[in-house]
């Protein structure tokens, strides 16, 4: 969800107890892999867990597969940047989508006996749709795991002083070991372990932060002050109404200029809440695979619902820390938001700008702005203006200017460092080991999740489908293991790629964004409209992806330059790009358009082409042609429909509380 950026450069010293906790965790995950080894007999055991896992386990793994370290870091960063509105990613985005998956879509995924999401697409449409989906998915998972491993190795390098290469290879080696032994079951089990590690590792940090601030009431008060004066903390360059960080909806209702996210209500509810979230939670094989591994239909449908409970409460652990960090900084509790460091060379260049700008008698505001830009800082304290006026009357020496710049500069925030800076502030040895192990665990299980999704798609949807059709199961089981090793090696290659070509990586992620944006339209039509044809789905998907690219090339968020952030086609055509108040708004609207075009094209082309599948072919794959599930074996209060309504009500209540 968030792009990797250099994590905070803070070093900590670990005591023996911290290393012991780290080693204990590692020993247990590897041990689980070895303990599961004897159950891995067929390719299905290895790649799909033989559909044998209880719902609470798949449920926690479902949630946890998405709770990667980049999510942890990114959500805390957004919590600081945007406040409680970040919870929309959970309460508007994830929860309704998870309920929809459980109630409406899971019966088709699980009931069709497909082993993967691309395989469902093949059953419902044709080979072309499967091929497109499985290829992009396979490449995407490898890149995702590479990006995450690069961030982990960087973190271990900066935080603990470990060698980058050693950290990367050792951590990947551990993941390889336990996935190779226990397959998908290993990955799912360690995801459950990781879930508890994160909850139990971060809860005390949040508690201590909250206690330090003086409770939620005090935090709210502090953030209200921050919202009206965000400049001293370098949070935003303009003031907002006092509830901008502490209300989820009110600032949104007043338009994009009234909330720090710069997003309008429609883009938030439809773009994020519907298109992007449903697209991710309902179609991404990485998460859906967890539910498909459940032991029966009821368990498969309960999986996303069980996951929704911790997901709904997760903002306390992942978003609140970001808000706490801002609160602590505002209340002067001996804490400052982590800052982007400035090199001495930049300062020297800024001094030169200062001297030339003051010599040419520019207005103090202009001088201040020019110096801040050169320095790469957010701005300057008001005192700096006095220094400028003074310099404009009689020149002051370079050394004095340098001191004035260093003393008065307000540096930009390094939001991705927020969560670690809190861990560092509050954790003594012991708890520190637990919190860092939780972070490390989420990195490693993220890699395991991606690799297990990759090996299944590779083995069943690419290798078995296009390369070697009628081989023995033992052969595919072997291929699954081989794909695991290959997947890990490719991830390592991608990690190096991400390390050395950061900009190229941004482009790669951008392209995946284009492919994902329209995907939900294809699934929605496929599952609920029997008339949808393979040709319609395939061309609709391509059209939607092209729309994403065109939309991106024609639009640009304020403050961004033409390039990887958009605007390139507009420049090519010599027209002004469509302006958006923020990158987030641009993305949400992009998704909305891609979805709309994909939906329209799929419907239009389906109506123009002949349906090649008979009603019998589509039984169990399409809503109207599938007999309703009558599950009498579970009491009414365990039925997905009932649980879904309860969860939705809970979600609405949360939204009202933090309105």
């Amino acid at each position: 969800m968030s792009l990797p950026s250099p994590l905070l450069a803070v070093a900590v010293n670990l005591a023996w107890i911290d290393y012991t906790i780290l080693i204990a965790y590692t020993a247990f995950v590897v041990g689980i892999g070895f303990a599961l080894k004897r159950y891995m007999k067929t390719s299905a055991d290895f790649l799909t867990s033989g559909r044998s896992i209880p719902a609470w386990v798949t449920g926690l793994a479902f949630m946890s597969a998405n709770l990667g370290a980049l999510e942890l870091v990114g959500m805390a960063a957004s919590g600081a940047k945007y406040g409680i509105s970040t919870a929309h990613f959970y309460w508007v985005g994830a929860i309704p989508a998870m309920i929809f998956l459980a109630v409406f879509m899971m019966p088709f995924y699980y009931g069709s006996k497909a082993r993967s999401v691309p395989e469902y697409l093949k059953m419902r449409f044709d080979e072309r749709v499967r091929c497109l989906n499985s290829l992009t998915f396979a490449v995407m998972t490898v890149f995702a795991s590479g990006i995450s491993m690069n961030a982990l190795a960087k973190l271990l390098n900066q935080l603990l002083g470990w060698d980058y290469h050693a950290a990367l290879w050792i951590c990947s080696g551990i993941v390889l070991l336990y996935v190779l032994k226990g397959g998908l079951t290993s990955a799912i089990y360690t995801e459950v372990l990781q879930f508890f590690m994160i909850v139990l590792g971060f809860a005390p940090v949040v508690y201590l932060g909250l206690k330090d601030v003086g409770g939620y009431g005090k935090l709210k008060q502090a953030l209200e002050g921050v919202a009206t004066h965000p400049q001293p903390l370098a949070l935003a360059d303009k003031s907002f109404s006092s509830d901008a960080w502490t209300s989820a909806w009110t600032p949104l209702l007043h338009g994009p200029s009234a909330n720090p996210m710069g997003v309008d209500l429609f883009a938030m509810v439809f773009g994020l809440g519907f298109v992007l979230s449903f697209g991710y939670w309902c179609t991404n094989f990485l998460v859906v695979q967890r539910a498909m591994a459940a032991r029966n239909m009821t368990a498969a449908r309960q999986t996303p619902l069980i996951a929704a409970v911790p997901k709904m409460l997760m903002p306390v652990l992942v978003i609140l820390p970001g808000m706490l960090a801002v609160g602590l900084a505002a209340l002067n509790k001996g804490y400052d938001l982590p800052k982007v460091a400035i090199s001495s060379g930049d300062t020297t260049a800024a001094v030169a700008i200062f001297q030339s700008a003051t010599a040419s008698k520019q207005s103090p505001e202009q001088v201040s702005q020019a110096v801040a830009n050169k320095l790469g800082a957010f701005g300057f304290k008001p005192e700096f203006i006095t220094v400028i006026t003074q310099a404009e009357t009689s020149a002051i020496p370079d050394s004095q200017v340098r001191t004035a710049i260093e003393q008065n500069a307000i540096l930009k925030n390094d939001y991705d460092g927020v969560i670690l800076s809190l861990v560092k502030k509050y954790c003594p040895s012991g708890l520190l080991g637990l919190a860092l192990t939780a972070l490390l665990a989420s990195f490693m299980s993220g890699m395991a999740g991606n690799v297990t999704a990759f090996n299944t798609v590779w083995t069943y949807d690419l290798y078995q489908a296009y390369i070697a059709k009628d081989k023995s199961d033992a052969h595919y089981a072997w291929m699954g293991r081989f794909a695991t090793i290959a997947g890990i090696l490719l991830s390592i290659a991608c990690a190096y790629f991400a390390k050395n070509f950061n900009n190229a990586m941004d482009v790669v992620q951008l392209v995946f964004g284009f492919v994902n944006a329209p995907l939900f339209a294809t699934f929605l039509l496929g599952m609920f409209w029997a008339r949808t044809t393979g040709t319609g789905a395939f061309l609709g998907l391509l059209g939607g992806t092209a729309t994403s690219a065109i939309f991106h090339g024609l639009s640009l968020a304020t403050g961004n330059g033409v390039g990887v952030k958009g605007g390139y086609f507009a420049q090519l055509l010599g027209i002004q790009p469509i302006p958006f108040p923020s990158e987030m708004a641009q993305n949400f609207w992009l998704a909305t358009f891609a979805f709309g075009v994909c939906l329209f094209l799929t419907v239009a082309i389906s109506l123009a082409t002949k349906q090649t599948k008979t009603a019998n072919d589509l039984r169990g794959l399409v809503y109207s042609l599938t007999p309703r599930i009558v599950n009498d074996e579970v009491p009414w209060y365990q039925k997905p429909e009932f649980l879904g309504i309860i969860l939705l009500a809970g979600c609405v209540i949360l939204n009202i509380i933090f309105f």
Partner: protein
Amino acid sequence: MGLDIRLPIGLMFSLIGLLMTGYGLFTPAAIYERSLGINVNLWWGLVLVVFGGWMLISSLRPQKK
């Protein structure tokens, strides 16, 4: 799958909990300045032991099918 996940979860958190509790008992109060004077290792270690123990017990109880 034959292995009950509650067993390793229970074992691991009991072990880490015991380690942290023990560490908390034998460390000077000075290191807890950063955790607002609370001996977090001792208290949180105990929480982990309780959680781990609960997981262990539930995994060892005979399974109802």
